[in-house]
């Protein structure tokens, strides 16, 4: 069972602002999903290696040669608030 406090903690980690109604609903829904998912707790998995990826990967290397990148203005054109050749964001510390 997921409590309200846990929902708020996870939402903070995920940088999501949830309304009170959303917190309430999320607690119930996540609890229901986790109750189902908890069944894998019954499986004997101690000696099983984890799989993070199904393709047998090898390092793919290329020569480290400089090449042109996108022009700055092309990249900034997609930003909500481009200023003076940079992405503008609010101050990390809000003014009092």
């Amino acid at each position, binding site marked *: 069972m997921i409590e309200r406090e846990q929902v708020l903690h996870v939402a903070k980690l995920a940088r*999501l602002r949830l309304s009170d109604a959303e917190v309430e609903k*999320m607690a119930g829904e996540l609890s229901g999903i*986790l109750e189902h998912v908890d069944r894998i707790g019954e499986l004997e998995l101690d000696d*099983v290696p984890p799989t*993070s990826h199904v393709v047998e990967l090898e390092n793919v290397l290329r020569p480290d040669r400089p090449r042109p990148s996108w022009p700055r203005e092309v990249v900034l054109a*997609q930003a*909500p608030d481009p200023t003076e050749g940079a992405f503008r964001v*609010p101050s990390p510390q809000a003014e009092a």
Partner: protein
Amino acid sequence: MTAELLELSALEAHGAMSARELSAEDYRDAWIEAAAGDELGVYLWRGEDTTAGAVGVERPSVAPIAVKDIFCTEGVPTTAASRILEGYRPPYTATAVRRLIEAGAPILGKTNMDEFAMGSSNENSAYGPVLNPWDRTRVPGGSSGGSAAAVAGGLAPWAIGTDTGGSIRQPASLCGIVGLKPTYGAISRYGMIAFASSLDQCGPLTRDVSDAALLLSILQGRDSCDSTSVGLEQAPRLPDREDLRGLRFAVPVEIRSGAMESGVRAIFEATLKRIEDLGGEIAEAPLPHAEHGISAYYLIAPAEASSNLARYDGVRYGMRVETEGDVVEMYEATRAAGFGDEVKRRIMLGTYALSSGYYEAYYGRAQKVRTKIAADFAGAFEDFDFVVTPTSPTVAFGLGEKTDDPLAMYMNDFFTVPMSLAGIPAISIPAGLAEPDGGGPRLPVGFQIAAPAFAEQHLLDAAYALEQAIGFEARPGEGSDG
């Protein structure tokens, strides 16, 4: 004349265009006109001038195509059906789309989908649902619902989508068309907006198996921009197998008793009989961990998603919500307004599964279950050529029917998720029409065939032989009385 052109399969059109019996421009224009008649909510953007710009092909030589809105396309709105990417016009084109354009396929438009490919009904789009052409009160499936409905509804000759846990195969099943999820790594993921990177795979949604083979041959290949793309050893050739003699098909023991609609079960059993009629051998095989696929998938995919979607923060692209506070407040407000309910749910679930104190119990265990599921398939493929299941436990369900119950929605993926976790190829072909359990019009039922990694040719050949024997000819609008 136009109607006749639209009857051609993409392969037939390709043949006629190559032989100069068909003007590629006339054929393209007929499809642009057809796409303009979209009443199903399929297209989020249509390329009305497909001769110009990034999506343009001056001399078309391949059938025009509908592209799921998850593929970055230079200069063309690309939103993954999310508010948070509103207004985004990527400065580059996904490799899969680039290969289509280079092959001479004009881009007809970008198709609707569940937001960030999270969903099984297309109801999670920020831009409205897609209607199933067989019955407009029902969902087309998802997340590639727009691409599936486009092909089934006569709005595109063929389409591409992405499949993370069934997002090509399930909508193909619910719309009565062919959907192929290739082996993980067969097609480049470069420029495909990431959901769960260890599972996401691009693939074809087509009218028939031959079109799927042709489309796969265009899409597949190694790409220096995606180091997990390895391509197929050989580009697939067109399938021509006529029987299934000498081939062994495994039916997972566990699924015969599993939950599925009675109509779906009847079509599944009838299709097994058809395989035997074609000389194939059917036997049961254990896949004991497949039933835990949903649990493993709904930990692994959200965990990867919570990380992949961290990039949407209102700084570099898409929308931003301005606040009075600091930068963190801006992030939180932007993400709260930009993401829909299901995306928030998955981000929360994934963040929880990865958080300190829960990582081992959830994410760690899920990765071990993934190992067991892959081993189950490997065991089955020692004795069998293929594993077969229904694609979806139900036919197309009603709009709004499952939106209040996330877990019930997730169960749509019961038969498709295990193959995704194992990284193996699987195809859904239409096998017949069946009534839903609650009564109603007869609707398409898909049959899923899975093969070992990189055995696409073998899979397409068998699917083709079975497709010819089934002879599925029903079309939306005429299915209920047939």
